[in-house]
Structures are given as structure tokens and as C-alpha cells.
């Protein structure tokens, strides 16, 4: 008879088989999906997946084959639509590397909770995939665009959003995780960036789009879509989008111009540090809020005659820049309040945290209260760097 201790090892080995971790798949059996688009269809949804052809990613690729392949499938549910793609693809769709999900504008206006559900439910899909709404075009059209630089259009679209988010205030990337959290938060509404196409869209789909320096068709991120719950209400323009990202504390660096004190040209200022704080207050039983915004900027470009070494001139410029920024942000807030009445800034959340008692009564009709709420801005704008030269050259 075998001693009991001797039995432990083989039994432990069999335990390994019971874990259900048997997920072996070779890389050349997978179709790596980098981007997905969801459009409405008669039967429900039309899902478009952009898949990489790995053989086109290597050094010796054949130029006449596209590095990206688009597959579309229709179904009553998203999952069904994706599975249906297997009827026309030799490989299993592998969603773990999904970078960007596009949602058709019409679908977004109807509500995104249905198409989003499988994305946040599926454990294979990474929660940091970004979302965008395709404006004016179907997602399939956007994903079919041939892009310069990145061989994979999906990577180009994804990286462009990531880069512009860093250096261009109106850009704002919403990850699946952010969207999920915002939808679950009371007193805050989501926004999604819009992507659209410009130029000759038809020719943009062909390889010839990248055969000359100037692309015939291009994509572009344009403004932010304001949601109420899971429904898209409308679009913010560039300036209003900027106001939103300032308040959302998501500006890392951005650029703005201001008219010179002398009024004969513009100065360009790069904001390199921005810090916003929302302070909810209650006055006479009504909500109001103060936004404290600290900005630091350096001068990038000066078109006019100004002596920046003189304190008064610099302060004059600083004052004008502050006024300009205040105008932009206040306009943006007022537009959101009056045009949409959707609290994308998260004031409601701030009240919920600071004044839970009031929030109990206000939460039901918060949209109305938000639209009427007085919001003041305390702006602290400082120019702290002048660049390599102080005054413009023609001044010296």
C-alpha cells in the first residue's frame, strides 16, 4: 500500500485539471481586435470589428494587402453579432486588446447602456478601452479609413486621442471604466468625445489615401457629446469642451490666445498647470457653487509691441488672459446649464458628499436645480515663464 503522503502529490496534480484555466490558444489562431464600432441595424445591432493581420505587421509585408481587416456582423445582441462574424473569418475574435470602441451617434441618442453592457461585463475586455461617438458617419465608415503613420487605423485613432488629450484642452478621453463609474454615480453625467470624418471619405478608404503627403480623407475629434443618463443630448463646441475639461481637472497642457493690451495682435499662452476645485455651498436652502481654478501659463508667441520686462505690461497681459479664460469657462458652464441641463461637471456629486441631507431632497429634480444654480468662478491666473526671450524682437 502506498503511504498517504505519497498520494498527495499526484492528487494535487489532478487538482490542477479542475481549475478550468484551460485557456490555451496559439497566437496564430487569434484575430486580435483593436477597435470595435457599434451601429444600429434592423435586427438590433451591427458590430464592426477592426482586426490586425499580423503578417502585415512584420518587416517583409506585402504592400498590396491591408494590415487591418474589417468584419461586420448583425444580431439582436452585441455578443450575437460578434459571434456571427465567425461565419466569415478563419480566426476567433480576440477582444482582450480592444483599444477603442466607437458608438454610432443615432445609437447614442437612443441610449448607450445596452451596447455598453456586454463590454463592461466581458472579463476579456480591458476597462481602459476608450469610447467615442461617431458623429455624422457610421462607425463602419470611420473604421474603414486608411490612416497615415500607424499601419493600424485603430492604433492611429487611439493614439491621436491619447496625445491630444494631453496637449489640447478640448479633447477628452472617456474610458469604459470612467463611463461605468459615471453612470453609477449620482449627480454626474457622462460625456463622450466625438469623432468625425472630413475630406473625401470615399477615397479615404483606399490605400491611395496614404500614397501622397496630403491624405484625401481624414478623421478628426470634434467636441464633446453631453449625455443625460445614457442618452446623448447634443454637442459642445470647442470652447465649451475646453471649459468642461478645465473643471473636470483633466487639462495637462493646452494653449489659448489672447488679444494684446495694445489691441494690435495676439499673444499665445500655454497653460502648463491647471488645478480646479469645486466648492458646493448652500444659501437660503438653494445650491450654489464656487469653482476655484488655478492656472499657470507661459508665453509661447507674441505678435504685438509689448515690453514684458515691465511689470505693468506683463500684468496687463495676464489680466486680459484671465478675463478671456474666465469668459470661456463661464460661457461653457452657462451653455451646459441652459442648453442641456445635464450636470456633466459633477456638482451634484459634490453636494451629495458635502450636504447629504440637502441632496436627499434635491436628487430627484437635480437637473432643474443644476440648470438654475448660480456658479461663480474664482480664477487665479499666473504667467510664470516668458520663454527664451522676454520682449518680442522688434521691440528691442
Amino acid at each position, binding site marked *: 500500500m502506498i503511504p498517504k503522503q505519497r498520494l498527495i502529490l499526484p492528487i494535487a496534480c489532478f487538482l*490542477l485539471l479542475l*481549475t478550468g*484555466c*484551460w*485557456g*490555451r*490558444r*496559439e*497566437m*496564430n489562431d*487569434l484575430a*486580435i481586435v*483593436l477597435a470595435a464600432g457599434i451601429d444600429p441595424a434592423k435586427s438590433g445591432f451591427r458590430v464592426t470589428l477592426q482586426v*490586425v493581420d*499580423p*503578417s*502585415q*505587421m*512584420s518587416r517583409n509585408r506585402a504592400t498590396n494587402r491591408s494590415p487591418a481587416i474589417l468584419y461586420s456582423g448583425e444580431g439582436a445582441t452585441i455578443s450575437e453579432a460578434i459571434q456571427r462574424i465567425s461565419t466569415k473569418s478563419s480566426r476567433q475574435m*480576440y477582444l*482582450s*486588446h480592444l*483599444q477603442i470602441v466607437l458608438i454610432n451617434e443615432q445609437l447614442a441618442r437612443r441610449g448607450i447602456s445596452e451596447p455598453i453592457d456586454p463590454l463592461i461585463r466581458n472579463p*476579456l475586455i*480591458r476597462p481602459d478601452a476608450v469610447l467615442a461617438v461617431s458623429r455624422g458617419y457610421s462607425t463602419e465608415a470611420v473604421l474603414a479609413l486608411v490612416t497615415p503613420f500607424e499601419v*493600424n487605423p485603430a*492604433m492611429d485613432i487611439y493614439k491621436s486621442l491619447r496625445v491630444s488629450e494631453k496637449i489640447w484642452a478640448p479633447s477628452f478621453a472617456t474610458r469604459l471604466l470612467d463611463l461605468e463609474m459615471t453612470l453609477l454615480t449620482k449627480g454626474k453625467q457622462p460625456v463622450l468625445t466625438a469623432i468625425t470624418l472630413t475630406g473625401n471619405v470615399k477615397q479615404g478608404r483606399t490605400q491611395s489615401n496614404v500614397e501622397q503627403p496630403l491624405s484625401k480623407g481624414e478623421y478628426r475629434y470634434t467636441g464633446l457629446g453631453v449625455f443625460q443618463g445614457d442618452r446623448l443630448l447634443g454637442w459642445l463646441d470647442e470652447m465649451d469642451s475646453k471649459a468642461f475639461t478645465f473643471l473636470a481637472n483633466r487639462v495637462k497642457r493646452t494653449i489659448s490666445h489672447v488679444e494684446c493690451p495694445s489691441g494690435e495682435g495676439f499673444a499665445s499662452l500655454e497653460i502648463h498647470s491647471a488645478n480646479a476645485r469645486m466648492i458646493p455651498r448652500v444659501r437660503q436652502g438653494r445650491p450654489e457653487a464656487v469653482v476655484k481654478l488655478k492656472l499657470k501659463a507661459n508665453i509661447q508667441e507674441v505678435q504685438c509691441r509689448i515690453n514684458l520686462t515691465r511689470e505693468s505690461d506683463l500684468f496687463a497681459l495676464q489680466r486680459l488672459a484671465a478675463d478671456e479664460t474666465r469668459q470661456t469657462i463661464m460661457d461653457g458652464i452657462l451653455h451646459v446649464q441652459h442648453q442641456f441641463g445635464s450636470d456633466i461637471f459633477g456638482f451634484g456629486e459634490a453636494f451629495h458628499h458635502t450636504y447629504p441631507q440637502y441632496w436627499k431632497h434635491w436628487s430627484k429634480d437635480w437637473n432643474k436645480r443644476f440648470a438654475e444654480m448660480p456658479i461663480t468662478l474664482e480664477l487665479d491666473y499666473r504667467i510664470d515663464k516668458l520663454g527664451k526671450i522676454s520682449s518680442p524682437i522688434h521691440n528691442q
Partner: protein
Amino acid sequence: MTLAGLDEHIAWIRKEMGDSADLVIRRLKLDWPEPDGADAALVYLEDMADRQQLQDAVIAPLLDRVPPHLSQPADTLDMLGERVLNAGNLQASADRREQIRQMMSGAALLLLDDSDRCLIIMLSGMSDRGVTRTSTQNVVKGPQDAFTETLATNITLIRRRILDSRVRVVKQQAGTVTKTEIAVMYIEGLADPSVVAGVFARLGEIRMKGVLDVEYIEELIRSPKPTLFPSAYNSERPDTVSAYLLEGRIAILVNGTPFVLVVPAVFLDFVQSAEDYYQSPAYSNLVRLIRLMSIAIALLMPAFYIAVTTHHPDIVPTQLLLSLAAQREDVPFPAFIEAVMMALTFEILQEAGIRMPSTIGQAVSIVGTIVIGQAAVEADIVSAAMVIIVAITGIASFVIPSYALSLSIRIYRFIFMFFAAAFGIYGLTVCALFLCMSLARLDSFGVAYLSPFAPYPAKQKNDALLRPPFRMFGRRKRANGGTSS
């Protein structure tokens, strides 16, 4: 004893040796004791005894016409030994078995017709290749000499390094046929007496026909718990062995092999190199960390690659995944088969490199490089990434200072690869856990194999992972039973 006695003795030796062709019997007629002289015979194995010495130290004095003047008659045999012969090491013995045994190791026997004893004259002059440079444990800076196949030379190499009377050398014989000489060396007062006793006890149990290398001893005295890891350290460096003696370890030297066994041995011994102590601490520590990293790479790299690419492609950065996928695109085999194929090829090349005659070495390396490095990738049999992985793994395994450890790592690598292919990173983790458990339960003569890390906390962690500067060496390293000096 009469003349017949001498003849009988010679006849007995002849019979015992099966009338061996290299048995030389040289009859001598001595002029003394006066008046009638004596018959003698010199018996030795040709070339086992040093010819020159035999001539100068034995035959010439014996045939010297000038007899020694003795005040009183003494036993001729003792008189020869004390007054006539020029040899250093000689003894008288009546034990014929002992005589034969000594002759086998190079002694010449001087038989006299009036004595039942005989003189055993140690003249062993087997040609020695001399002390040469190390070939398996190289250092850039530091002592360059290595042990040889001769036991006496090896003992001397250690003795010259530790000029202390407390160094003990105990000789034994092992092997029922080979009767190999074994020397156990330790430093009285530093070595743990119970470990010393344990070593002798286990050496005493050896019942083998032959002992041709320390490995014979190592396998026989190791702890009975099964493991693929080396449980005794072996080195061909006298400086390393001396350093271990100073730590209170025990060295076992076997005649006929330039490798010396050191017990007890713990895992970290196999990770350390003599050079760690011959270079500045900053550099030594950097190298030690690189070495540990290399062990991890040599053990886990192919397994990790298999696990990640076949089970968890989701954790690979997207760009990297795309380029890996691009390389694998036309490869017909699963990653596991691909890895095993490459790793086996590498093992074959390595074994060929050791075994083949050194003159055709280049041919194999050229074929190996071209076949593996280029043709296999271009023919889409394996992916370029896999070649890189296997190459890095192979090079990393050469960083391991102990060849014995690198052998066990090579075996475990395949086990890890199998589990990684079957169960992914989960399998890898479980496998690593089992490896750690199996190492933790090992001990070498009572010293835990993973000390000073397990059991934890250990008293001495100085010089475990990192080597501190020498002025910070308060006491000798590690809790191996040896007390500090």
C-alpha cells in the same frame, strides 16, 4: 627465514599478482651482514615506482661496496632502513596484504631472506600533469591554480594556503577494488565535530567496487531526500576550498580527480563565485544580482514565454503582442513544441560542444548557429522571438557559477515549460511553489539547504545575497555549524 623463504615470498607475490607483466623482481646480492652477505629482492611495479628514485635511493646504496660499521649486530632490515636507504618514506611490515596494497600504489618492496618482514619504500612517481589553470571555474582576478589528479598535490595546495597546525588531514580508502585514497580535511575548532563525525560515518558506509571521482562520494553521502539539486559543493579551486574550510566546512579529496567535495553545502554556495571576493564589493554585488537574475531567466524564461503567449496574450502590451503575433504567423507548431524543439537543439549543441574533439569544434558551432539562428527562422519552423528566448536562456545558464546547479536548472526548465504550456502562469506559479517547498525541506548534514533564508530569521545573513566590504565582516558567514573565528 632461509633462501627458500625469500623464494616462497616472491612466488607468493607472483601468484597474487597473477604473474603480471609489469611486475619487476630484481634480485640483489648484498655484501653484508658480514661475513656471508645476504640475498635480497626488490619487487615493484614498473613505472608505478619512480625509476630515478629507485636507482638513487635504493639500488645504489644497497650495492655500495662500503659496508656500514656497526658496533653491535642489529636486525639487517632495520639497519637497512635506518642507515643505508636514501628514501624518505619507508616502513617495515610483515603483513603481506599490506605489502601488496602499498606496492599497488607505487611502493617498492625490499625482501630479505632472513626476515619475514619487508621494507615498504614509498617511491610513487606516477607522472603528474602539474598544477595548471582552472578550466571550469574561471576568474579574471584572483588565484588561477587548480587541483590536479594527485591527492598529495591537492593536499599541499590547501596546506600552503592555511598555515595552521589545526588543519586536519585524515586519510581513508574507498572502493573495494580501486582502494582509492580519500583525504578528509577540516580545521579543528572551526568545523562542527558532529558534522565531522557524520562525514566519517557516511564515508565508512561506502561499499563500491570503485571510486573514480568525487561524484561517487557525493551521491553516496548525500541526504536520502530526492532532489535534482546538488547537495554537496564541488570545486577545482584550492582557494575556494580553503575559504570553505575557514568557514568550518569539511573538504573531501579523492585521489585521481581534480575536484574536491565540500560539505555541508547550501543553495547559496552554488550561486557564489570565488571572484566575488577578489573584486570590489560594489562590482561583486552587481554581479551577484545579475547572477540571481540569470538563474531566474535560465529557469523561467521559456516557460514564461509559453505561458504568456498561449494562455495570457491579454497581459502583453498591444504593440509587443502584434510583433510577436507577426513572427508566429507562419509557424506550424504550437509554442510549446517550438520551445521544446529549440531548447533540445540547444542542449544537443551544448553536449556536442563538450564531447566532440576540440579540433572540429568550429564546424559544430558554425552549423549550429546557421541552422538554428537563420535557417529555422527563415523556413518558418520557429519564430525569431523563440530563438531569442532560447538564446538568452542558454547564455543566462552559463552565468551560473556552479556547473552542477546549471545542470539541475536545465532539467527543471523543461518541467516548468511543460506546466506553463498546460496551465499557463497558474501552472508556473504552482510549479515554482513546489520547487521552493522541495528546496526548503532539503538539508545537508543538518544545515538547511535554503539557509540563511529558510528557516527565518537566521542569525547570520552577512554575505548571503550581497557581499559587504571585508571590514564589515564581523564574523564568518552563515549558520552552518561552524563557529566564528
